[in-house]
């Protein structure tokens, strides 16, 4: 079911991301202040926004699980959070590279945006551990959903608090009082953001399809082999 429409979606994602990065390197002008290094912005910021939205989406799916008790929602939350964690690793590494190039340091502990993102990442790093520590599948899904809802609510609050903080060492390129980015840069950024969001949705569907296939094979094996089938080993991943 989740594999339906995956091929056109993957093609659209590849086209959008290719178009975005062709625009980044061959059309968008270099930043007047940072120069060529600012090209990292078109990768780092869309990845960060998509990762944070993915965490919030995981929270919404978690809330839906608590409402319906359908294991499909638990799986949706798990896959969204898992993908967001991978993107968050990318955000931390690319952000660190950008920081070294423009500030001369790999990491600044007094910069709220960096530290708050690290806190969010570390918070979600406990998600898999929490799941793995609970053997009973129903209890695992319930506790993980509560975690996803609470952590998902923390993400936008955390982001808003950082935006309201006084220190603005981190470049604020979107919605600044001085007018923000020029047109070419904004257009390229929007396409890169759309590409990253499409990539997230494509990989989400891909992983959902894969997990559904595993569950179907397991159900078939159980029907065919009955009690001879060995019990599935303990896992952090939900079972359908």
């Amino acid at each position: 079911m989740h594999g339906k429409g995956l091929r056109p979606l993957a093609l659209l994602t590849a086209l959008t991301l290719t178009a975005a990065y062709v625009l980044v390197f061959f059309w968008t002008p270099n930043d007047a202040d940072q120069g060529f290094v600012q090209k990292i912005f078109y990768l780092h910021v869309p990845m960060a926004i998509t990762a944070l939205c993915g965490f919030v989406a995981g929270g919404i799916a978690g809330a839906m699980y608590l409402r319906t008790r359908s294991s499909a929602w638990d799986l949706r939350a798990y896959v969204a959070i898992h993908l967001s964690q991978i993107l968050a690793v990318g955000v931390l590494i690319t952000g660190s590279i950008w920081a070294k190039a423009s500030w001369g340091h790999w990491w600044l502990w007094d910069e709220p945006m960096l530290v708050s993102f690290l806190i969010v990442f570390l918070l979600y790093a406990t998600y898999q551990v929490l799941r793995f520590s609970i053997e009973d599948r129903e209890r695992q899904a319930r506790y993980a959903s509560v975690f996803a809802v609470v952590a998902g609510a923390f993400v936008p609050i955390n982001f808003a608090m950082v935006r309201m903080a006084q220190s603005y060492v981190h470049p604020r390129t979107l919605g600044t009082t001085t007018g923000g980015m020029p047109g070419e840069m904004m257009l390229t950024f929007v396409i890169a953001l759309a590409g990253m969001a499409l990539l997230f949705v494509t990989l989400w569907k891909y992983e959902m399809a894969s997990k559904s296939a595993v569950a179907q094979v397991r159900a078939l094996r159980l029907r065919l082999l009955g009690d001879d089938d060995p019990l599935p080993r303990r896992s952090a991943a939900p079972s359908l």
Partner: protein
Amino acid sequence: MPALPLDEAGKYVAAAYLVFLALLLIYVSIMAGRLGRVERELSELTADVEARDRAREPEHVS
């Protein structure tokens, strides 16, 4: 800090984009491995079903 010259900035930009590409490739290869495992399990199940059908055939004949 003043903007880095292109030859120096290029290294950082390339590194950032390569990190993204590497993450994507690692993810896709792990998923491909899992898909391979599902395919193997499906083949095993198909073989089990065929063996079961073959074992039942003489009963239908008699």
